[in-house]
């Protein structure tokens, strides 16, 4: 596999997988379980979308499971996370129950953003999951600001700013890098490099396709890692996280994986050669790679894999059932959360009730 790390400090073999011999088997099994949970969650999400249970835009993490689980294994409860709109797996791997996540996709009051956000705008304050953001690159200055707050308040932890490969082409990214370096902010820019920004490949969109180098003008250190190797992602994230927290040095991590499907659920993916997509999907399936490795190392067997698959199936079904049975947000709550500090002359419950009564919600 040609996407080995370019770093002098981390050594992911160009065709191999991280060595598992010194790993805690229980931890490894847990990683596998989480990866499979994310896989099934997204597959069922896609199915729910086609059943029109989910509206709007919907972007899946299929192919990104090792990236997500490896990342979350490296973060601590002190860390804040900002992501883009392809974030279902991130919030689940951070520890939020799949039920409220699915409920958000269904637009329900029990959803993680109370049905106000949807697929692209998941949030959970308790887990310091500070939002999925729908505007490409919009979260980058925000995450940089959160790191600013950590430094200002002299608190432990870092900010993990997840972003896609194409968002390294927006201006806000460079302004953020400059500020993060100038002000020594504890932040890790975590680039999920799945090769495509919608239908534009990295090479077509970025004059520097080695994305980990894009901080060099700001003297920001960068590395590339195989995003289909859960252990490699975890280890390099841990190291850069530590560095960001202890030395207040921002860094860029270019995490390479393969996007299994189109940009979003409704994208037929016509701009990619489907033969190649099929081939790469097999070659770069993080779950397949990991299960082979686990089996080879006798950490799991067929029976265990089957058992986990069944367990995951039940859990995802439970999430769907929870979402299905959850109540819709009420029209009379339409103006709730409009302002944190109430001020005169803003619409409230009375106005919302009027809308509810007059129109029954149909406009």
């Amino acid at each position, binding site marked *: 596999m040609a996407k080995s790390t370019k770093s002098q400090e981390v050594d992911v073999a160009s065709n191999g997988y991280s060595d598992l011999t010194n790993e805690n088997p229980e931890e490894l099994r847990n990683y596998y379980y989480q990866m499979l949970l994310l896989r099934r969650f997204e597959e069922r999400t896609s199915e729910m979308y086609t059943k029109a249970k989910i509206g709007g835009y919907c972007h899946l993490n299929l192919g990104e499971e090792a990236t997500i689980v490896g990342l979350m294994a490296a973060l601590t409860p002190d860390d804040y996370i900002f992501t883009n709109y392809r974030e279902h797996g991130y919030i689940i791997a951070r520890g939020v129950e799949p039920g409220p996540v699915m409920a958000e996709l269904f637009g329900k009051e029990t959803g993680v953003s109370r049905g106000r956000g949807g697929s692209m705008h998941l949030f959970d304050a308790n887990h310091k999951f500070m939002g999925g953001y729908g505007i490409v690159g919009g979260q980058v200055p925000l995450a*940089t*600001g959160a790191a*600013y*707050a950590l430094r200002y308040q002299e608190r432990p932890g870092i900010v993990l700013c997840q972003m896609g490969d194409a968002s390294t082409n927006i201006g806000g990214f460079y302004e953020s890098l*400059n500020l993060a370096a100038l002000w020594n902010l504890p932040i890790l820019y975590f680039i999920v490099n799945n090769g495509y920004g919608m239908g534009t490949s990295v090479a077509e969109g970025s004059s520097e396709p080695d994305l980990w180098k894009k901080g060099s003008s700001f003297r920001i250190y960068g590395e590339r890692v195989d995003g289909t190797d859960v252990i490699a992602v975890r280890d390099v994230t841990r190291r850069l996280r530590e560095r960001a927290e202890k030395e207040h040095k921002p860094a860029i991590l270019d995490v390479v994986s393969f996007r299994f499907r189109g940009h979003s659920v409704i994208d037929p993916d016509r701009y990619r050669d489907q033969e190649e997509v099929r081939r790469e999907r097999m070659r770069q399936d993080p779950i397949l790679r990991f299960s082979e490795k686990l089996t080879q190392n006798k950490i799991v067997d067929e029976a265990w894999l089957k058992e986990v698959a069944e367990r995951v199936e039940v859990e995802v079904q439970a999430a769907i059932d929870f979402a299905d049975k959850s109540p819709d947000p009420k029209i009379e709550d339409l103006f709730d959360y409009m302002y*944190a500090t109430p001020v005169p*002359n*803003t619409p409230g419950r009375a106005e919302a009730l009027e809308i509810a009564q007059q129109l029954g919600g149909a406009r």
Partner: protein
Amino acid sequence: MPIITYRQALNDTLGEELARDPNVFLMGEEIGKFEGSYKITEGLLSEFGSKRVVDTPIAEEGFVGVAVGAAMLGLRPVVEIMTINFILVAIDQIVNHASKIHYMFGGQARVPMVIRTPSGGVGQLAATHSQSFENWFAYCPGLKVVAPSTPYDAKGLLRASIRDDDPVIFIESLALYETKGEVPENDDYVLPIGTAEVKREGTDITVVAYSRMTVIAMQVAQQLEKEGISVEVVDLRSLRPLDRTTIVESVKKTNRAVVIEEDWYSYGIGAEIAATIQELAFDYLDAPVLRVAGVEVPLPYAAKLSQASKPGAQDLKNAIYRVLQGGKRWQK
């Protein structure tokens, strides 16, 4: 009561709020060592240090976004944008992020921040440095937009804005910085965001204004009093939320209205006010509502052209005369 300038009122308030709350900090271009392009932050770096008064590079999108993110974690940034013309590169962070975070995430995160910026033009600043974009922000639910016209209001509204838990766009004006007014000492007063004020009572006609245009409206009202015309001046103070009640109550009393605004004529604040009046007080009107606004050109540099393009006292007087005559079609 001491009489101080609008600039001094802002400077005092920033200093007092920095002293009151350790989470308050200032951020912007040239606000520290340079002490502010318009010296609003004069002396604050030396008093509070570089942690509380932060000079930024020229990167409005970046540092406005940083302020939003810092606010989400509990800090209370007060950002200076040198003039509103430079805010456009940061508008994504304001409109797509700051204004939506509290609502879109179901109330789980707050964005207690203020963006202070002067709007409008003075002198011959020409096309790119004389614009009024407050209506762009007043359009956006989730933001609060205030535009005080006096030192007293500036102080009370800046305090309110800094202590408010939502993003507030605080509109200033270069031409107001040197204006003077009474401001009480040792009085921690706060003015409510979202309320207008009748700055002068009258019976013949209502003039609705905000920021610098309120000052012009007050001068015109005084002059017209000598001609026997009684002008009521409603100072909006807050553009979002908009205090429709105060506007409508005034028009119900005077039965006539003119709006004066520094922004361009079409799609401006005046259009919103005129629409509000016709929706809520149509039966009380004795004449159409007129708007006095900027001429729709990129503001030319040449002094004569520049002056001809900006709304002023004479325009307002003419509009008032026309409305009082029964409201013939406005032909400027």
